[in-house]
């Protein structure tokens, strides 16, 4: 079973190809740029990811040539022969894990990743910083693959941090826009909070299992004593801390605030990082550690509730956005909530299923919106669009496929995965209700986006209308392929494929006949609602808006999360650190008590000799006080 030599090499090759692409572009980018068409660098980046995809597919095929182990699980752990960290009873080897779950993930990453790389060739054709852009994109792919292939938690964490770094670099890519740099920084800071949870969680996992190896954790989780609701045993604490990390990366309440701002980056980046791959890392991690989560009822409930509430909240915010990319951003947050809902009710395979279908349709929608923005010469406000259906037909038809898929119209990909999630939540009426209602909202805001953008009359003015043009074929081919995926991808039975990974038996989800009907009806209701409000009877809108004004105001203010956080950071943590950061090019900007004392001392020093300020005495006094406190503690009976 372990003697397939190819399996020992292939996963490393998959990883190293994009890394090699990055290294070549970083070192020789300027030289490659010299060719006339100036697309050499771009195609090199594409080639590495496409070949990686081929190798990933080959690896998957070889994996299924292995003899299945217990519970029908086939897995393989290629080992590089080195340890990363090692200490008494504790070792972190450079080893990967190839099993059905990581195969699905790496196929999604390299598959969707290839299409987005190709699309970028067209989208970034006029940008002068293409070479660094593609090198970051390649580096991102490497780290993302490391995240899903890493055989232990620390290695996964390296990928986790790496994708964060690349996301930060790529959001701030157009750094001459201040808002882009601010968004990059926000993403980074928020994710640091999540990562703190992740590190602590890792430490707790180590002390619960004595190992950080993913296979060891999955195998041994079953032997932990189950922990009920409000019972905070080792599994619960570890799982909850790790979930803090997941909420950071996957933009769930309360750390969701960075994702919408991340849309400042180039659109293909939004599609790859902030829709299809990186933001799903939290879902992957929770599913990967599914056996651990399953031990703790508290952790499962937390995941489910946070997911459901985030899904609903983000969907309501999406209702009132007018920037095409922001609608999609909130939609992503909402769909990620669905995935966590599935994991939280125990259907980890279904969560991964939705991750997989979402990768198709959300990448498609983002790339489609990129094509729209491209046609509109950079305009992102839907209020200035309209009637684009006839002008950019390829974009429209593919976009339609994505919209139907996300709305959950039968036999499109999203229908299957969403239906499975709702079926899994059958035992929890409240969660099920939230899920169904969110499905209605999803259909509504997506139809609204579709109608505002592609239907009606063009509202952008003559100048913009003159410039309208369909995107080049390098951008359309990825759209068409993703549209095919969005339409047909749901027929692959992902939950059955990955189920053995979770060591939870069949995980059969009981289906009831009325559920798909109810889900479909709510989707249709959402679309019809949008049709009446935005196409057929737009005059109804004003009346509705005044009826629901308080609610709409909350939606428009994004539930005040940003305001609360800003207030907290400004007042409590470091008042005015923003000033130092963004205007702090001046040495004299004085912030905080420490600097102020230093300045006052400086002023005094001119009048008095240094020793006479009493400053040294003050230092000595502090030492004395410290010593007294210290000795006092030691001698306290």
């Amino acid at each position, binding site marked *: 079973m372990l003697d397939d030599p190819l399996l020992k090499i292939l996963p490393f090759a998959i990883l190293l190809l994009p890394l090699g692409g990055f290294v070549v572009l970083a070192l020789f980018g300027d030289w490659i740029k010299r060719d006339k068409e100036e697309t050499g660098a771009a195609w090199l980046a594409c080639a590495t990811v496409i070949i990686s995809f081929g190798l990933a597919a080959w690896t998957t095929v070889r994996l299924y040539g292995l003899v299945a182990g217990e519970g029908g699980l086939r897995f393989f752990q290629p080992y590089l022969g*080195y*340890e*990363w*960290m*090692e*200490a*008494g009873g504790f070792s972190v080897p450079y080893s990967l894990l190839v099993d059905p779950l990581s195969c699905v993930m790496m196929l999604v990453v390299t598959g969707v990743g290839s299409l987005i790389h190709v699309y970028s060739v067209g989208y970034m054709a006029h940008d002068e910083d293409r070479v660094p852009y593609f090198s970051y994109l390649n580096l991102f792919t490497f780290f993302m693959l490391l995240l899903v292939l890493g055989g232990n938690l*620390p290695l996964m*964490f*390296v990928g986790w*941090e*790496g994708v964060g*770094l690349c996301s930060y670099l790529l959001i*701030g890519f157009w*750094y001459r826009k201040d808002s882009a*740099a601010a968004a990059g*920084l926000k993403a*980074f*800071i928020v994710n*640091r*909070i999540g*990562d*703190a949870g992740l*590190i*602590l969680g890792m*430490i707790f996992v180590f*002390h619960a299992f004595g190992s950080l190896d993913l296979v060891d954790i999955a195998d041994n989780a079953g032997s932990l004593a189950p922990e009920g609701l409000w019972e905070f045993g080792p599994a619960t604490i570890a799982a909850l801390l790790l979930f803090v990390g997941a909420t950071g990366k996957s933009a769930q309440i309360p750390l969701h605030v960075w994702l919408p701002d991340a849309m400042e980056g180039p659109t293909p980046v939004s599609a790859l990082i902030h829709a299809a791959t990186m933001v799903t890392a939290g879902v992957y991690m929770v599913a990967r550690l599914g056996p651990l989560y399953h031990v703790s009822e508290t952790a499962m409930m937390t995941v489910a509730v946070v997911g459901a509430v985030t899904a609903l909240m983000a969907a309501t915010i999406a209702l009132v956005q007018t920037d095409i990319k922001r609608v999609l951003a909130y939609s992503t947050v909402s769909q990620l909530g669905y995935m966590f809902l599935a994991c939280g009710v125990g259907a980890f395979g279904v969560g991964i299923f939705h991750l997989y279908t979402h990768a198709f349709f959300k990448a498609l929608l983002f790339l489609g919106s990129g094509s729209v923005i491209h046609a509109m010469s950079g305009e992102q406000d839907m209020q200035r669009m309209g009637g684009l259906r006839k002008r950019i037909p390829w974009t429209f038809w593919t976009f339609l496929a994505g919209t139907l898929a996300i709305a959950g119209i039968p036999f499109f990909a999203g229908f299957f995965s969403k239906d499975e999630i709702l079926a899994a939540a059958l035992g929890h009426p409240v969660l099920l209700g939230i899920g169904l209602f969110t499905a209605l909202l999803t259909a509504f805001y997506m139809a609204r986006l579709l109608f505002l953008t592609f239907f009606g009359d063009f509202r952008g003015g003559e100048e913009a209308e003159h410039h309208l043009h369909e995107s080049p074929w390098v951008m359309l081919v990825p759209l068409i392929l993703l549209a095919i995926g969005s339409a047909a991808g749901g027929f692959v039975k992902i939950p059955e494929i990955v189920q053995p990974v979770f060591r939870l038996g069949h995980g059969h989800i009981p289906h009831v006949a009325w559920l798909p009907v109810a889900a479909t009806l709510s989707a249709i209701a959402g679309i019809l609602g949008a049709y009446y409000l935005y196409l057929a009877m737009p005059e109804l809108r004003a009346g509705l808006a005044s009826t629901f004004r308080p609610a709409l105001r909350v939606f428009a203010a994004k539930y005040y999360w940003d305001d609360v956080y800003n207030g907290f950071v400004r007042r409590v*943590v*470091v008042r005015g*650190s923003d000033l*130092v*950061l963004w205007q*702090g*090019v*001046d*040495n*004299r900007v004085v912030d*905080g*008590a*420490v*600097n102020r004392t*230093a300045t006052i001392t400086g002023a005094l*020093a001119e009048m008095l000799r*240094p*020793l006479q300020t009493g*400053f*040294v005495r*003050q*230092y*000595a006094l*502090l*030492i004395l*006080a*410290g*010593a007294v406190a*210290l*000795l006092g*503690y*030691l*001698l306290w009976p």
Partner: protein
Amino acid sequence: MSGELDLRPLVPAIIVGVTGLVVLLAQAFTPKDRRAPSAPLSLTGLLAALAAVWLLASGGGRGAVLANAVSADAYSLFFQALLLGIAAVAVLLSPSYLRANGLDRGEYYALLLFSVVGMLGLVSSLELVSMFVALEIMSIALYGMAGLYRSRMESQEAALKYFVTGAFSSAFFLYGVALLYGVSGSTSLDRLEWAVSTLTTDSAALALLGAGMLLVGFGFKIASVPFHMWAPDVYEGAPTPATALMSAGVKAAAFGALLRVFGSALHALAGEWQPLVASLAVITMVVGNLAALAQGNLKRMLAFSSVAHAGYVLTALVASPGQAGEAVLFYLVVYGAVNLGAFGTIAALSREGREPLSLGDVAGMAERRPALAAALAVFLVSLTGIPVTAGFVGKFYLFNAAVTAGWVGLALVGVLMSVVSAYYYLRVVVAMYMRDPLGEDTWARVSPSATVALALSAVITLVLGIYPAPVLTLARIAARSLL
């Protein structure tokens, strides 16, 4: 005790000390119009001492003990190699900086070497009085270095403050030694360990009092809150390569001695001093990081960051000596490389008495000096503790040690404070990569020797992040001497 004196443990220190004297003499015999070869001489001496450490470690010298007071055990040798390496890098950083600031005099190198003699003694002392002597050798040389920048008011002021408060803290240390002598009738750590494990109630109070006094003395040298006030002033006022040596070397040497005294000799009292060290760690991390947040001056920011890092290292001291030793030793290597790099970058750019100290000074650095900006980014990312750099591995070991010992809250504070620290380290990276330059690039070209120093630090930072196993193994072997 054997009849003859075994001088082998002292050989590295002797080589460095003699080199210091040679540097002074060379300065005196060099004609006025020529420049004394101080830096090459110092470097040669340090490398020779490093070779001596190597010979001691590989030959039969390991484990040699001089008069039950100075030892060449694995622990000493590990630290000596580290300290000599740090000093060598600091020497590499010095010539261009000293010339740019009109400080190019032999005394600088002599003082540097003498302070290294003290550090070497500090980590290899098995006896409290020789430890104190070594501490003073190191400190007095450092007071001189802090005040070397005679034309600058801050430098003078810093040296005086450092001296006065340093003397104050030394008094605590000495008093602690006296009290512990009262408990054990000896200043030898071996005897102390034995005496402490057989304490009566009365002598326990005496021992605790002594331990507390020592902790104050060490707390001053490692710049732990509330004994840290000198650090920002001194780090800011001293010539920058000297600052690099202080932050990397002094901290390593002081932690080396602290760990030997508390981890091994006073380990029987661990139940008493561990909560204290834990509280010191917490306030040090909190105050250091919050103060660093408020700094606009890069050198002061790095000074408070160095205070904060003393706190991170203290967290590991609550673990068993073996585990604490391994984590602390590894971290000090990482920290040495990273801090030499960070201060070194500032020093390397210094020109005509100026150095880049504000965010505005480094704005847009990535466009003008891509390699230098990348190196500084690596150091700052490592200080933050992000993977692929050594800082992550180091912090992981420190916090893991604390959690293993059951101090989860302590690790929690450490991790949260690391999150806070991302903010101030990162804004330098943001300024370098995402801001446009403010004016002409008037900074110095980086000299070849500084390039070597910075490249070395960056490579170590990255290699230890990806493949730390060899150094970890060495740290583990060295820590075993404590048991």
